[in-house]
């Protein structure tokens, strides 16, 4: 193994890539393959009374339709198991999948989609997290007690703490407060969401997937299809860019359901427009900081309140709140820390995992807060960071003991690369002890 260390090795699949031979999911074009497109909710929130396919069925090339009634198994999916595979009673975001149109080609799908008649009673949606949290706010979907995610029975705040923040604030010379927000973001992988499904010669359901995590998803798919895992050949390995967006099932469940119903190969793919509008996103985070600091720069307490916009369904967002909470105090030793995190549902397409996955949504505001504290103290930002950086043996808010700390050494190297001269008293510091 060690003969490879320090050497640039050619990619094992590189020759296929430069020859254009790599088979991405959309490159599977099978004889007799049908195409499926989603009938999407035209409203942000509503009650579904019915779907009329009569006129759509007369479009030449249309083979049929898939609705929730065609699902052999579980009707809910997603990382939290709360999202309808196909909505049949209510819709909670604009663009939500209600049914599939299946046809010989996508032109026929498009024509049929215009002729599907939806009977939906539109209801008042809520888009803003703080509006959604107000008492009496419209509920994002039925059967919710409130729009706050429940981490346990009646537990809507995920609390992490270390020490006692009130004691820490009492010890502080200054209290610095700040509020920070990060926005929504699409993964924008070059390869849009797509899946191809068909039954093989042994009656196993083959699915060509661009999944980033086959084993997160195989169980969910087996549940939806009501098939044992041994009868699903979930074939991945080529991902045309994921960035966290392909941790969530966007296409495989729909291609699979259509293949099960019509016993023919089926391709389901989102257009770029559909992908941008309706696939999962990085969700909005808002963090409020209250930080206690002594005149000499030592941080004594950090109390963070954070809110994360999950969209209409949980996805990985409740976990994202926990992960953000763990990292929202940065790589700094603060003996008294508390994070109160809430995950808020709104009538938007779901947010879920994306790159670095909610860690920088906590680290960015903490670094902004450090800059603000340094200004208040009249202290150089490097000095403030060096004084408080983790040393081995320090403890983070989730009670992990830091081992192999490297923030000081990383900052020293960064300063060198940036041509910044640091004073000797900072350069003398080591992560090995305080």
């Amino acid at each position, binding site marked *: 193994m060690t003969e490879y260390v320090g050497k640039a090795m050619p990619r094992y699949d590189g020759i296929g890539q430069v020859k254009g031979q790599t088979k991405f999911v959309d490159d599977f074009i099978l004889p007799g393959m049908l195409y499926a497109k989603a009938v999407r909710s035209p409203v942000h929130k509503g009650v579904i009374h019915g779907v009329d396919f009569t006129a759509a069925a007369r479009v030449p090339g249309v083979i049929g339709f898939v609705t929730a009634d065609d699902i052999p198994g579980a009707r809910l999916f997603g990382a939290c198991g709360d999202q309808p595979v196909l909505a049949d009673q209510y819709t909670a975001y604009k663009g939500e999948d209600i049914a599939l149109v299946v046809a010989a080609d996508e*032109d026929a799908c498009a024509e049929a989609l215009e002729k599907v008649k939806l009977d939906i009673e539109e209801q008042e949606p809520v888009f803003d997290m703080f509006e959604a949290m107000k008492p009496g706010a419209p509920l994002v979907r039925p059967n919710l007690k409130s729009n706050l995610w429940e981490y346990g029975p009646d537990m809507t705040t995920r609390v992490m703490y270390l020490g006692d923040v009130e004691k820490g604030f009492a010890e502080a010379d200054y209290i610095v407060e700040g509020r920070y927000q990060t926005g929504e973001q699409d993964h924008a992988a070059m390869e849009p969401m797509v899946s191809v499904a068909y039954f093989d010669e042994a009656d196993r359901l083959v699915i060509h997937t661009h999944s980033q995590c086959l084993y997160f998803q195989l169980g969910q798919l087996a549940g939806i299809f009501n098939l044992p895992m041994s009868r699903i050949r979930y074939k991945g390995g080529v991902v045309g860019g994921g960035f966290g967006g392909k941790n969530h099932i966007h296409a495989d469940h729909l291609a699979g359901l259509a293949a099960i119903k019509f016993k023919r190969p089926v391709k389901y793919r989102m257009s770029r427009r559909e992908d941008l509008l309706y696939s999962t996103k990085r969700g909005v985070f808002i963090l409020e900081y209250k930080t206690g600091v002594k005149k000499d720069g030592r941080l004594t307490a950090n109390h963070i309140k954070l809110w994360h916009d999950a969209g209409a369904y949980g996805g990985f967002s409740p976990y994202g709140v926990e992960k953000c909470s763990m990292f929202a105090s940065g790589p700094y030793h603060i003996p008294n820390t508390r994070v109160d995190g809430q995950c808020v549902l709104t009538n938007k397409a779901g947010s879920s995992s994306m790159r670095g996955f909610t860690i920088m949504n906590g680290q960015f505001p903490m670094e902004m807060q450090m800059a603000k504290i340094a200004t208040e103290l009249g202290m150089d930002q490097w000095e403030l960071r060096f004084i408080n950086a983790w040393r081995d043996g320090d403890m983070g808010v989730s009670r992990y003991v830091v081992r192999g700390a490297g923030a000081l050494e990383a900052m020293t190297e960064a300063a060198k690369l940036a041509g910044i001269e640091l004073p000797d008293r900072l350069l003398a510091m080591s992560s090995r002890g305080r």
Partner: protein
Amino acid sequence: MKQILSFTLNGSPVDVVVTPTETLLDVLREKLGVTGPKRGCDDGDCGACTVLLDGEPVRSCLTIALTVNGRDVLTVEGLGVNGDLHPLQKAFHEHGAFQCGFCTPGMLMSAKALLDHNPNPSRTEIREYMSGNLCRCGSYEEVIEAIQAVAAGEYKE
């Protein structure tokens, strides 16, 4: 109203039945099984579907198929000769000029057109010429290095 489209694809004559609304990308991928050109946006924005039409780079997703009648189309599949890699293919591979690889077939065709027109482009010229080919993984630096290496004669046919 279907018509017969005849053109030269990667050096060989092709006849195919198409409708007036089909794009060159539709015909290449869905009818001829030539899947090197990718459908990234289907809207002319991303460049993943780039092919050479009579030596000029075009977005095959914006090119109505019937307009290539009697003309010469080159895709990534026709870039190498007799199974050997084109110098750009070798350079992209060795410089790691991609991560997921979805943009690579389009990148290679734009890069070929660039070097055919301008065998010694400056870094700025490379950046400008390649600006219509998006790479979400962020391999732009390696793409520039690979093109510069070919221009410098480091890779031979």
